[in-house]
Each structure stands twice: as C-alpha cells, then as structure tokens.
C-alpha cells in the first residue's frame, strides 16, 4: 500500500512536471526577434528541391498581400495598405517591370486589399473592408473600378479575402469572421476595430439559435477601471445572449465563401461555418479548394491545438456548414478536453443546434502556421502536377498562442489525395524560421502564391518582416518581396 502511495505521488509529480513543461515553457515564435533594417535579400539562403532556382523580382514593397499573372505572363502585386499592428499605408496594385521597378495600376482606399486575379482582360480585386466594408471590384487595365459586391461585413479581425474565378465564370471569394471564436472580447479591442465599430459582431450566412452562453470581461471602453462587460456570441461587445435566441442569417455574411457573376448581380452562398477562408483556388480539374485559418488561443473563448485546414469545397452543391464556431476539422470542441488551453476553461458550444455534421478537411497544417494563399500548377511544366502550393505566413506567437519553435515561414505542397504536406521552399539550415530571426536573406512571411499561365514559374508574395511580442505585431514597411521560382535549364 505504501509503495502504491509513493508511486501515485511520483506519478503526480511527473504528470504535473510534464504538463508544466508546456505551460511554463516560453514561447519561441519566429517573430519574437529583434530586427534592424534593411532586410537582406539572398536567394541562395532559400532551400528548394533539386532542379529549381529562386530569384527576387521586386523588393522594398510595403505589406504585399497577393500576386497574380496576366494572360501574357506579366506579373502584378498588391500592396495591402494595412497590416495587423494598426499600420496603415496606401493600398495599390502594381505592375512589376522586367528591371524590378514597379508601375502603379491603381491606388485607392478601403484597406487591406487582400487579393487580385486576372480574368478575361481585367482584374478582380478584393478590398478587405476594415473601414468601409469589404468589396469585390472589377478593374480594367486603365484603372476603371466597378464594384461587384459591397458592404461585406469584415470590419473585424479578418477581412474580405482574395477572389478566384470558377469554371462557371463566377467570382468566388471568402470573408473571415469578426472574432476568433464567436465572442467579441478584449482581444478584439486590442486589434483596434471595436472602438471604430462598437456594435459590430459576427454575421452568419443562415439563421442560427444560440445556446445562451455569455462571457464576462473587464470593459476597457469606459472610464471606470472596475467596469465589466457581459457578451454573448454573434452579438456586440457588452450585449449578453439568451438561450434559444435567434440570430438572423444574411448575405453577404462573414465566416463564409460566396460567389457572384463576373458582371455582378445576385450573390450566392457557397459554404459557411468557416473561420477565415483565406485562400481560394480551383484545381485544373475544376475542384475548389480553400485554406482556413483556424482558432487562436486568445480572447473570451480561447481554443487550443487547432491547425489551419485545407478544404475541398463542393461548389456544385453549395451551402454546407463547416463547423465554426463549435467544431474543428469535423470534431466537436465541447467534447473532452482536447481543445482546452492550459490554464483556460474548456470551450462550450455556442450554438443551440448545429446545422449539420461538418465535413472532413483534406488536411491540417501546423498549428499557427497561417496557411494562406494557394494555387495549383496548371500543367506539369513545373512538376508537382495536381498538388496544391500553399504560402504559410508563419506564426504570430505569442499573441495568438504559444509555440515551442517557429511554425510556417515557407511554401508547402499538399497532395489532395493523401493530405501529405511537404515543404517546397524554406530557409536553409538546421532550424526553421524567418530570415530576420535566422540571419541571412531568405524568406520572411510568404502570404500568396501564383503560377504563370504557362506553368513555368511560381511567384511568391512575401509580406516582409513582422516581429511580434505580447503587445502584438510590429510590421516593417518596405520589406516585402516578390520571389520567382523556376526550373533550372535542362530539367
């Protein structure tokens, strides 16, 4: 009996010690480093599979978010005009000239501009909508702008995202949710948007009924330091919910993928229940794939251990619900303790009823990798035919959650048949991370990828340096790059 007690005590010591190893370990994110400009550019510091070469074709960009190629092979880049960290600039669409200079196609407002695609002689561009609501606009080569969709509710944490053109000729786009996991809280106030839009909240695409769970926080929006706020899901900060309370769905929504005809007109829902459907791309055989940035460990309802996802979206039978805010990758958040952050309460369901059992994703990326823009090679000229190429921005630890080592900062391939993820372009050496942390002149934060129409070149939009701390991100203007990857001659 005494030996059993000793064993039990020892087990408790070991168990507490092991769980404490994670709880008390410091975060080691890739942005948690000092940076002294200028950014160095050294293509040789980027590792690629044998037979490929990389070069920088445009440098000194400010917050580039997307790259596209027209039907003649001309490359364009979007400078977003905004970065997390409340850093503002002018959003622009630039043409990249052969000598690396850039020419402004159009400049505007309503940042962040998040994506662009060339189709049928014109651009379709997404305005993130932080200040004026998201828009998808048609843009001619001489700069004439015609909105196709306006007032997309993306004033919050996530924005209206990059468009893609479907086999049906329609323009598909995603809109990210207002919050991390359905409840406006202190984390959103730190983002900066709650003071601009105090009544803003998540907007579902279909009617939902709430479970009536509320979350109490301090209330930094009043002068009283002891003031508190009680907030329910899908409601403004400081507004509690009741069991069974109905929230009306509408379009445009956020947390959804939608589509509209290239000439404009009625919007249609493609999929919903998606936290931040960032990247959209159609494979050469006409299947729609989407990356989804998953939950963070922050705010009133922190969720732990959820890697970003790659979904295949059934655009021919639209309208499926994919699980946000109560499921991750088809798994319910409120069963067991798998999604409970150390030291935080276990997540509970926010919805009284779930629209359906969510589908299963193609694959799960690394937690906090920020799997963003994606594209497919149009043929086998580049190799990797049928594989998705995904730009991974890299972690924003510690504000979004802790990591024990840098995650992301690369471009990966995904085999949709198996879900196996393999790095394609990453900084060389024994450890992973952005060049600003590792030293050298390689990749910082890949945010988008695009193939040339002939399939011979892969272009990578690299957002540039963004360091991070407990106070949030510190982006560095003028450090963005567009890289080009091609096969070496004779391959």
């Amino acid at each position, binding site marked *: 009996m005494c030996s*059993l007690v000793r*064993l*039990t005590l*020892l*087990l408790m010591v*070991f*168990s*507490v*010690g*092991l*769980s*404490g*190893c*994670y*709880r008390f370990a410091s975060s080691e994110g890739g942005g948690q480093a000092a940076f002294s400009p200028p950014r160095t550019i050294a293509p040789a510091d980027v*590792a*690629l*599979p044998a037979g490929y070469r990389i070069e920088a074709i445009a440098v000194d960009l400010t917050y580039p978010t997307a790259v596209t190629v027209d039907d003649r092979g001309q490359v364009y880049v979007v400078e977003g005009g905004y970065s997390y960290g409340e850093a503002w600039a002018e959003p622009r669409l630039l043409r990249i000239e052969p000598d690396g200079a850039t020419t402004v196609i159009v400049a505007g407002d309503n940042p962040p501009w998040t994506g662009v695609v060339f189709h049928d002689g014109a651009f379709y561009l997404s305005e993130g909508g932080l200040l004026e609501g998201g828009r998808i606009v048609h843009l001619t080569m001489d700069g004439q702008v015609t909105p196709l969709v306006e007032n997309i509710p993306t004033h919050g944490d996530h924005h209206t995202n990059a468009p893609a053109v479907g086999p049906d000729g329609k323009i598909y786009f995603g809109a990210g949710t207002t919050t991390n996991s359905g409840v406006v809280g202190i984390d959103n106030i730190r983002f900066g948007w709650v003071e601009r839009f105090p009544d803003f909240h998540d907007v579902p695409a279909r009617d939902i009924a709430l479970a009536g769970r509320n979350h109490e926080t301090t209330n930094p929006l009043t002068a009283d330091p002891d003031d508190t706020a009680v907030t329910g899901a899908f409601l403004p900060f400081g507004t509690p919910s009741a069991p069974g309370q109905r929230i009306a769905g509408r379009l445009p929504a956020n947390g959804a993928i939608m589509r509209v005809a290239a000439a404009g007109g009625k919007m249609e829902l493609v999929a919903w229940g998606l936290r931040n459907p960032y990247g959209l791309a159609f494979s050469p055989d006409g299947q729609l794939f989407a990356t989804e940035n998953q939950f963070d460990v922050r705010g009133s309802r922190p969720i732990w*251990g*959820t*890697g970003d996802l790659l979904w295949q979206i059934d655009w021919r039978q639209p309208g499926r619900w994919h699980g946000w805010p109560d499921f991750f990758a088809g798994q319910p958040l409120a069963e*067991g*303790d*798998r999604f409970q952050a*150390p030291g935080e309460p276990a997540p509970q369901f926010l919805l009284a009823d779930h629209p359906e059992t969510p589908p299963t994703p193609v*694959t*799960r*990326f*690394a*937690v*906090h*990798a920020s799997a963003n823009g994606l594209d497919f090679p149009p043929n086998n000229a580049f190799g990797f035919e049928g594989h998705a190429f995904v730009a991974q921005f890299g972690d924003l630890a510690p504000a979004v*959650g*802790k*990591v*024990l*080592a840098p*995650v992301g900062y690369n471009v990966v391939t995904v085999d949709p048949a*198996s*879900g*196996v*993820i*393999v*790095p*394609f*372009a*990453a900084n*060389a*050496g*024994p*450890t*992973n991370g952005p060049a600003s942390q590792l030293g050298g002149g390689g990749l910082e934060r890949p945010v988008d990828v695009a193939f040339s129409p002939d399939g011979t070149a892969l272009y990578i939009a690299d957002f540039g340096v963004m360091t991070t701390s407990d106070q949030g991100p510190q982006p560095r203007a003028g450090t963005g790059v567009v890289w080009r990857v091609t096969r070496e001659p004779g391959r």
Partner: protein
Amino acid sequence: MKLSHPTSLIVLLVAGAVLLAVGMAPGCGSARRGTPVAEPVRLAEADLIEGRQIFATHCYQCHPGGEAGLAPAINNKPLPGWLMRLQVRQGLGAMPAFPEHEINDDELDHLIAYLNHLQSLDPPPLE
C-alpha cells in the same frame, strides 16, 4: 493536464522518467528532415506510406514534419517504439491520448515505423 486514462502506474512512471530525461530535453541536433533542406524522404514500403498518412492526419499539426511547433520535436529524440506507442495511447502532459478508435493498432505500428524512419534520416548540415 490530460492524463485521463491512467492504466499502469509503473509503466507511466517509467515513461515519464524517460521522457523527462530524454524526450523533453533540448533536441539532440536538428529535427529537420527531408526536402528541401535535407535528403528527400523516399518511402518504398507500404507500411511507411501508411504511417506517413496517419502522421499527416493526427500528428503533423503539432509536430510539423516531426519538428517542433506547438509541441516538441520528435525527429531528434529517438525514443524506443514502445514508449512512443504508450505516449500516443495515454497522452502525456499537454499531448492528448489517441485511443484505438482514432488510431488502431495496425495504424499505430505503421506510424511508429514512419517515425523511426524519419529519425534515421540525416538532418541538414550545420552551417
């Protein structure tokens, strides 16, 4: 703490001791494996291919490519197979348990074979 299925105190004690001594210690060399930073991971045997599939579904998101991320690296900590098997089944520290309805015994065999293969590969050269 997610030790929700303690079955054998002695086995868990041994596991905990070994993990504290080896597993949670700083990595022994680089954990990076495969392209583009090191030699390609070439899998010919069906069990290794199956193991990679299991890894992609259940392990990759916390141990990307066997490197550290949300969780510690695996590739540079060559624990014995029985101990990896035990940790998968029981969970440990912040790592959840994966019961048989999520990873069955055959799949776990393939997973362990794949992890052993990754551990056997050369890391990228030190600079």
